[in-house]
Structure formats: C-alpha cells, structure tokens
C-alpha cells in the first residue's frame, strides 16, 4: 500500500511524492505556530483517511484539546476515520501534557498513551508503537508527528533534542516511516534550527512580517528532497490562507501595490494625487458607515438594486479607462481591471473558475468590506456584484449578471460570486 500525497496542494507540488523514510520539518515563528500545528494536523488527518498509520507525540497539547479542535474545524467527516484508526490500533496519540481526567465523551477513546516527559521514554514509545502498527498492518505506511521540538528543547536542552531527531530520522529511514516535526525558530540559536534542517529531507517555513502594524503570514519551501527536482525557486514566498480544513497560497500582489504607493504624492492644497488623479485615502469605516446607513434608509432590496447599479457604472468606467489608456483587450483587460480594485483595499481574488469565452465565471474572494461588516443575516457585497458585472460587460461587450452566493458577513470563509453572460 502506498500513500503518495499529503492532499495539501502546496506541499505536494513542492515535495513530489511521499517517499518512505522522508523526514519533514516545519520551521515557524511564534505567530505562525498555531497555523503550523494546524497544517501538520491536516497532513496527519489526510494520511489516516488514506489508510496510513500514525503516531502523534504531543509535548504541550492534551488529547482533549486536539480533539475539540478537530471537531471545531468542521472535520466531522474525518472524525470517524480517526476513531476507526484508533480503534484498529493504527493511530496513537502520545500525550505528554497528560491531563487528570478526560472529558466524558473521550473516556473510551482508544490509542491515547500517557507517558512521562522524558526523551528516552518518548523515543522508545514512538518506536514501540511503530512496531505495533506494523505487526497488525504490515502494508500500511506510518507517519510520526512530533509536536513540538521547541518545547522539548526547553525541557531537555538542545543537544538531547537534536540527538532525538537524529535518532528518529535515521530510524525512519531504516523502518520506512515518515517523520514530521515542527520547531519555533524564535526560541533558538540559528545553529540549532540549521542542524534540525540539516537532518530533514524537506523543510517548509511559515513566518510572519509586520506591515503597517499588522502581521502578514507567509510560507515557503527551504529545502526539498535531494531526488526531487520539482522545486525550482526555493526562495519564493507566498502569503497563505488557512481556514477550517483549507490551506491555500496566494501569489503576491505586493510589487503592484508598491508601485502605486511610490506614486502617491501630496499637493499643498490638501490633495492626494496618484498618476495625476485625486484620491482619498480613507478608513474602510467611511464606506461601512455610509453604505450601512444607506441600507438602513432604503431597505435591503432597494439598497441592493442601487448598489448594483452604481457598482456596474464603476466597473464599466474602470475597463473603459484601461482600454483607452493602455489599449488592453480580453483577459489582459480583465486582469488589470481586477488588479486595480484589489490593490486599493477592497480585498483579494483567491480563485477564479470558468472563462470569458465560456460566458460563466465563479470568483472566490476575500472582501474587506464583508469581513469588517459585522455579523449579518444577509449577503452584503451588492456593490461588488455590480462592479464584477460592469467589468465583465466592459471587457466583452455583452451584458453579464453577477450574484453573490457566499458572503463572509454571514459566516462563510470567503465571499463567492457567480457571473454569467445574459442571453
């Protein structure tokens, strides 16, 4: 039996196949630690779903906490696979931060092993449980997830933990296990991180950078397996989104914004000018207050109609501007018109399915307006529906309708718009 993929696109594209004996290290900082734990958790759950065996050694999270997290991430479909794996003796959880009493509904959960926090005991338990799994499931590949090396370094010192990882990764190569571990780089001397990376075959880094007082998380591959030629640009950083069970990367638009930013200038009459046009740099709150007040005044239906019509004229103006100034057509014109909006603070297009030629498009996007709107019982992006239909009409010359099918203000992870050409 072979399990070749983690089912996380970014990892699979960079890693190629999950070969036996591969050791994977996730390096993170303090801010991205939770994301890294979640990402590793998703990889393990996907591995179990595909029939693999797993051993999770957790230094800081009691089992009940992980269990609640799995439930809260809408992983109800996955839960029976985990329970079945534990029942069959294919999945084990080594609980080092063991708790006095399980929550009531966890008291019968099999596969949770509570042990003392001792490096030799941990290694022994991992290898022993690996052998146990192999006895019952000789064909099943086994993945070990060590979460996390940083806490163990605090407990036992770096030398002991480096030896632990060395032992684990060599044992993995002998026995054909896969090893996944994570370390918080903010805690350690760079030499320790480099040594851990040296032992690993594949290293992924999650890090954050402060921008304008806000922290932006990034992911990149730092090291790929020696036999794997897939990764050509190791230093490429991607912003990512992680919500529920979805981990996806977003190509950078920052250079386009940086160009816009360089061209912002201030004229002494109090005008803010970009490319010789006057602009307002106003808090998003200005639009939230204005459009909410308008919605209250007109009622939802009339407001939606107004906002769609207004958005449509804006969409048409944007495309007319790019067509006349840069002589753009078709997909190029669509791309520039969308980028124009995306670097002005309204949000980000995450996924586009369909095409102009098909006359049908589905757009998933992060909408700052909806994200900051507050909880709503109805979809709130009518103005964007109008802008999308206006841009598409401007690009193709045909009339389009656009309908918001999911909205962040009503609790969806992203806003989703379906546009189709009118017949």
């Amino acid at each position, binding site marked *: 039996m072979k399990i070749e993929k983690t089912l996380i696109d970014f990892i699979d594209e960079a890693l190629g196949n999950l070969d036996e004996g591969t050791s994977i290290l996730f390096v993170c900082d*303090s*801010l991205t*630690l*939770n994301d890294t734990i*979640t990402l590793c958790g998703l990889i393990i759950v996907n591995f179990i779903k595909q029939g693999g065996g797993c051993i999770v050694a957790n230094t*800081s999270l*009691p089992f009940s*906490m992980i269990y609640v997290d799995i439930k809260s991430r809408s992983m109800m479909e996955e839960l029976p696979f985990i329970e079945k794996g534990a029942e069959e003796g294919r999945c084990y959880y080594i609980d080092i*931060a*063991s*708790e*006095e009493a399980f929550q009531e509904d966890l008291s019968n959960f099999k596969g949770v092993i509570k042990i003392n926090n001792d490096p030799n005991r941990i290694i022994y338990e991992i290898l022993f449980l690996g052998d146990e799994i192999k006895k019952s499931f000789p064909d099943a590949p086994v993945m070990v997830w060590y979460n996390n090396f*940083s*806490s163990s370094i*605090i*407990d036992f010192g770096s030398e002991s933990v480096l030896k632990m990882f060395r032992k684990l990764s060599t044992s993995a190569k002998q026995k054909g296990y896969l090893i996944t571990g994570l370390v*918080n780089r*903010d*805690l*350690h001397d760079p030499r320790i991180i480099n040594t851990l990376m040296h032992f690993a075959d594949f290293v992924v880094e999650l890090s954050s950078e402060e*921008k*304008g*007082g*806000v*922290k932006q998380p990034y992911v990149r591959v730092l090291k790929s397996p020696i036999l794997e030629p897939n990764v050509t640009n190791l230093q490429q950083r991607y*912003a990512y*989104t992680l919500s529920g069970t979805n981990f996806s990367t*977003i190509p950078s*638009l920052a250079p386009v914004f940086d160009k*816009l*930013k360089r061209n*912002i200038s*201030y004229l002494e*009459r*109090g*005008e*803010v000018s970009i490319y010789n*046009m*006057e*602009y*307002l*740099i*106003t*808090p*998003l*709150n*200005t639009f939230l*207050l204005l459009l909410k*007040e308008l919605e209250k*005044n007109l009622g939802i239906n009339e407001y939606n109609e*107004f906002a769609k019509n207004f958005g449509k*004229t*804006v969409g048409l*103006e944007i495309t007319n501007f790019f067509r006349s100034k840069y002589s753009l057509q078709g997909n190029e014109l669509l791309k520039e018109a969308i980028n124009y909006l*995306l*670097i*002005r*603070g309204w*949000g980000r297009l995450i996924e586009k399915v369909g095409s102009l030629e098909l006359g049908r498009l589905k757009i998933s996007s992060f909408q*700052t307006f909806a994200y900051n709107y507050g909880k709503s019982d109805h979809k709130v992006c009518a103005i964007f529906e109008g802008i999308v239909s206006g841009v598409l009409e401007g690009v193709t010359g045909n009339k389009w309708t656009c309908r918001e099918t999911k909205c962040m203000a009503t609790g969806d992870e992203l806003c989703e718009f379906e546009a189709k050409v009118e017949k």
Partner: protein
Amino acid sequence: MKIRNTGIEFVDQSLGALYDGLPMIFSADSTTANDAQKLGSLIALNILEKGGGCVLIYENLPFSLAVNETLYFHSPENKLTLEKAMNEGRLHYLNIVIEDAVSTLHFNHSEFINTVANDPDRIMYEILNAKNQIRKNFSDIPILILQTNISSLAVDFGSKAALNTIRKVILNVKSGRDFFLGILNREMQEPNVTNSFTHLADYVLEFGIDILGGKKQPYVSVNRTPLLKDIGRKLYKKFAYELSEDNFYTIPSLPTSFEELKESISYLERGEITAHDTNYIITGMRDFVHLLKEVEKKLGKSEYTKTIKTVGRSIGSHIAKALSSQFQPTTEELFKAALNHLSITGWGKFNILEGNTNSKRIRVEGFSVFAANYGESDHPVCVLEEGILQGILEELTSLNWTCIEKECIAKGDKPCKFELELVENH
C-alpha cells in the same frame, strides 16, 4: 462552576473564551510592564468577583504594596472583592519579598498571605499547595495563577531554571481546570528566552511603545490565540489602549503627517491596505463624488443631507477619538490636528478663520477636493465635511454643535467656508 470570560472586552474578543487549562502570557517592555501588570490584576479581580479562586505571586512587591498599588487601584469596590475572596479562602498571596507582618494585619485572614523563600522549587511547591488549599473548600471553582513578574525569576535563578519552573506550572495548569497568567518584561532577557516563555502559552498579548510623530504611543497586540479559535487573527495588529481603574480598552490610532501615512501604508496579501492598525481604502475622488451624487439623487436633498451628516459626524467622532488617544494636548491643538488629518488623507486643506474651541462660534475655510471635483452646483455640496467637522468638535468638547457650509467652491465661491455654532441648552 465555569468562568468563561475575563470581563475585559479586548481580551475576551481575541481569546474567545477562558477554557480549562489555559496558559496566558503578557509580554511587555520596561515602559509598559506596569500596564501589563495592572491588566493582569484587573483580570484576577474579575475572576475573584465571579467567585473564582486566585493564587497571586508578585515577585517584586510585598502584599501591602501590591494590594494598594496594583490590585485595587485605591478603588473601594475592588478592595471589597479582595477582602471577600480572602475571607472565604479563595485568594492566596505568595509573599516573596518578606515584609513586616504588621503591614498585612488590616486583612482579617492574613493566614492566606504566605511568606515564601525565593527559591524556584519552593515557589512551585507553594503554588500547588495554595491551589490544593483552595480546592479543599471550593472543589469546583477555576483558579487563576497570576505571576506578575516572571522576568524576575529569570534574574534570580537564570533563564533555564525560570523556564523550567514556568513550564512545570503551565503543564500542571493544563492538566486541570485552572488558568495561568504570567507577566514578562521582554527587555530583561535575550529574545530567544522571551520567545521561549511566550511559546509555552496559548494566548499572548504584547505591550510596547511606538514613536509616532516624535511622541510615545503605548500599544497592545495579540501575538497568539488558542489553537481552537481563529477569531483572534483579526486582532493580530497593534492597538493604542487606555487603562482605567476598572477597565482596559483599545482605540484606533491615526498618522499625523502625509509622510507618516505614506511610510506606514502597507499591502496585506488578502487585499487589505493598512496603516497604524486601521484598514484603508484608496478611492478616486471622482468615484467618491459619483457615489454621493447618486445617493443624493436616490434619497432626495433633505434625506440625503440628514443621512450624510450622520455618517460625517461618526467619521469626525472617530478621528477625534483616535487623535485624543495619541496625545494629551489641548482641545484646540486636537481640533487643528483633526483638520490636518483631513488634509493628509485627501479631503483638502482646512484652516480656522475665526474662533476657537472655547468660543461659541468657529469659522473654518478650506479648499475642499470633494467640491472641486463635484462640478457646478447651485447649492453647497460639502455635506459630509459639515458632518465631519461637527463630529470632531462634538467629540472634543462633549457639547452639541451645528455646522453649515456658507460658501462652496462648487457654487463658484473660493474657498469653501463653514460656520460651526455651539448649541446652547436653555
């Protein structure tokens, strides 16, 4: 018995809920360490008020000083809460700085003020002992262990021993239904030691100082939220804050010059533009004028004026609040700073022609970029600016004002002129 919130809105929003076994760390610098301690004390008081238990360890303050300076802020209500909890045996204080026993006598049950030798194993033992004592009488209440200066532990015993002690305390807390809160001065250790402390916690708040326009601005940001919740992610940014006797709240901050705005404005890959922890939109003035013209057409002049003025007043109020949080200048200086803010964000340049915030009438003139882009009109068009100016003044003076645009560039006047008048209460 469950206690699910700290009573501090900012913490509760970013934390989600207090849950069994929760470890928290507040990481501060030397300037903000006292604020972090006070916030920790407020949380402890709120938990005691809700019937919970507390074990307090103030590494540098004897009980008599801690109780006056940081625990009840000289507030009689807070003192009552402390006395009640101590009388019931829900509050234990580990006194590491030994003091004359006389100073603790004004509390009836001073047996719960335990003098402890400054030794990591002894402190650990006393914490567990105090917890057990509380548990004997209150088996089902959550207990907060508050260590207000874990950096001092590192000074006394070395960072490794301090880390091991805190790790043990946290593992102990995780195995039960209690909470841990440690306050850390990150300037006293190497960054990797500070990061090791924060690594141990599920929820981390960072306190610090930013220099804005040459002035110091304290901020707070959420550096870690529990794995189970994504709700804190929205708050992974810096907030200016205010700390009062019984509350802690955050306030938006604003850039004070165009250069500062341009420098700090940044693009986040989810499509957000931020500067100074606020989301911004960069919008063409023509598009904005177009939007308001359409709104006016839709609502009619009277309803449009009413609606847009309401919006303007809210915007003005936000501007004034944000500026007030940054500096402590006079109301007059704040009014000028607010006009300057309008200018650097593209609304146009406005000056005070006559009057001041102490007079009953103020005249403001300015080049309104909105009016300049509006096209010809037979009536003044700067309704939003009227509302903004009114909102700024109302927020700054806590009095009611009116604002009317008397002359407008869109009508052919140069420049726009606004008259603000105090509404007298009869």
